[in-house]
C-alpha cells in the first residue's frame, strides 16, 4: 500500500513539534472530521531555517508532514509558496490515489505558513 519512504517517515517522523517563536504558522486540513496539520516555520532573510509540525491523521498524512518539513528547510519563501501538490507525493515515492489528499494537505500547510509569515511581515502579495 505505501512506499518504504512513506513507512520510514511515518515510523520515524522528522521535525515533530512546535516553534514557539515561529515566523509563520500554517494550519490546514479538516478539523471537524479529517486530517489536520499545524506547520511552524522559522524564516530568516527570506529563507526557511527551521520547520516543525503536528499532524492528526493517517500514516500518509504524518509521512507527508514529515517530508514537507525536510523539503521546506533551506528554500526561499518564494520557492516554498509555489510548492506543487504532487511535489511531496513524489518525494515520498508515490502515494495511493486515495491518499493524494494527504500530500495536498501538507502543501496547503506550507502555503498557509508562508502567507502567515508575509502577513506578519507586511509582504503579502496578490495571489
Amino acid at each position, binding site marked *: *500500500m*505505501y*512506499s*518504504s*519512504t*512513506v*513507512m520510514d517517515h*511515518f*515510523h520515524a*517522523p522528522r521535525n*515533530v513539534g*512546535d516553534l514557539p517563536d515561529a515566523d509563520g504558522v500554517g*494550519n490546514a*486540513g479538516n*478539523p*471537524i*472530521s*479529517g*486530517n*489536520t*496539520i*499545524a506547520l511552524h516555520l522559522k524564516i530568516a532573510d527570506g529563507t526557511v531555517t527551521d520547520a516543525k509540525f*503536528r*499532524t*492528526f*491523521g*493517517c*500514516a500518509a*498524512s*504524518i509521512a507527508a508532514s514529515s517530508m514537507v518539513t525536510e523539503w521546506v528547510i533551506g528554500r526561499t519563501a518564494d520557492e516554498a509558496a509555489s510548492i506543487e501538490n504532487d511535489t511531496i507525493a513524489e*518525494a515520498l*515515492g*508515490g502515494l*495511493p*490515489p*486515495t*491518499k493524494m489528499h494527504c500530500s495536498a494537505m501538507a502543501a496547503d500547510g506550507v502555503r498557509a505558513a508562508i502567507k502567515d509569515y508575509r502577513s506578519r511581515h507586511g509582504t503579502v502579495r496578490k495571489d
Partner: protein
Amino acid sequence: MDSTPFPETALPMASTYLDHNATTPVRSEVFDAMEPFFRDRFGNASSIHRFGQDARAAVEEARAQVAGLVNARPGEIYFTSGGTESDNLAIKGTACARKADGRHIITTNIEHSAVMNSCAFLEREGFEVTYLLVDENGRIDPGQVEDALTDRTILVSIMHSNNEIGTVQPVGEIGGIVRARGVCFHTDAVQSAGKLAVDVEAMGADLLSLSGHKIYGPKGVGAIYIRKGVEIEPTAHGGHHENDVRSGTENTVGIVGMGMAAELAAEERESEFRHLSEMRDALEARIRVEIEGVRVNGHPQRRLPGTLNVSFPGAEGESLIMSLDLAGIAVSTGSACTSGAIEPSHVLLALGRDPRTALGSVRFSFGRDNTMGDVDYVMSRLPGIVSRLREVSAASAGQVPV
C-alpha cells in the same frame, strides 16, 4: 529514496492476529473436509451421474449442518457466495417479491454496509426506508420498531450483532413484534454465529444471513435461512439451483467447508464464548487502566464476547493500525475499509461520537487461537504507540491543531 512497495508480501515471523471480525483462517478440520472435493469428488451437484450424486450428497449434508447451527430445517437453508449476498438477497429479494404489498422498509443506522447499501439502492428505486437510531450503546428499543411499522411496511432488517462494536440487539422481542404484524423480519447474524446462540425460532426470524469466513470456514460462501412459506425473488437467476432461490453451480468445496465450520461452531460455542470473553475483558481492563482518556464503544454487557472497540482521542485510527501492524499486531478500524479514503465510521457516529473521536478508534477482535499472552503482548506495545501518535498530533497536550 526508493519506492519499493512496503510492507513486503511476506508476513512477519510472529503475528498477533486480533481481527477475527474481519475474517478468520480456515481451521484444519474444515480444510480436511474440503480437500477431497477439489480433485477427486469434483462433480457438479446437478449432474445425474455418480460424480454429481456424490457432490449432491455432500451439499445436502452441509445444509443439515448449517441448519443445525441456527435451529432451522435443512430445506430452509440456501447457500450463497457470502454474507453480503445473503443480505442483498434477503432485502432486495423481499422488496421485489412484495413490492405490491407496500414499499416501506425499516432498518437501523448501524447495519453492515451490505444491508445499508441494499436499502440505499431500494431508496433510489422508489422504496421508503426508515433508519432507526440506536442509543449511545448501539441498542435499538423494540418499541422503536413497533412505532415505525406502517401498513406499507414489508420488511424489517435489524442485525443480531454489530461487526464494529459488538452490540447485540433484542431480536427476539423485535421479531415477535414484526411477525405479529405479518411483516417479514430479517436479521444479519454473520457476526453472531459461533459466538452467541442463533435460533431462528427464538428470534422470530423469517430471513437470516450467515457467512463462512467469519466462523473459520472458507471465504466466498455464505448461507441464508428462509422460513418455509416466505417468498423472495432470487437475485441470481439461472439453472434453478438451491430450489430456485439462488442459481449458479454449487460451490461444493465452499459449501462442505461452511457445513463443517457450522457444525464445529455450534459444538464449541459455549466454551468459545468463555474463552473470548476472558481475553477481551482482560484487554479492556488493562487499556482502561494503562492508557489515559480512552472510551470503550458498544454496550458494556450485551456485546459479542471477543469484540473490543476503543477510541483513543488524539490518535488517528489508520496510524494506530499501521503502527500496531509494524509491531506484528493486526487490528482494524471497524469495518474493513475498501476505498482507502478515511471516513469516520457510521456506527461510531451513530453512537454520538464526534467525527475526530470516531476516527481515532480501533477494533480488537479475538479468535479461537488467541491467548492471554496476546493480551500481554498488545499491552507491551499499545500504550507507547498511542502516546507517540498523540505526541505527533499534540492532542495529548491539549494542543490539537485546528
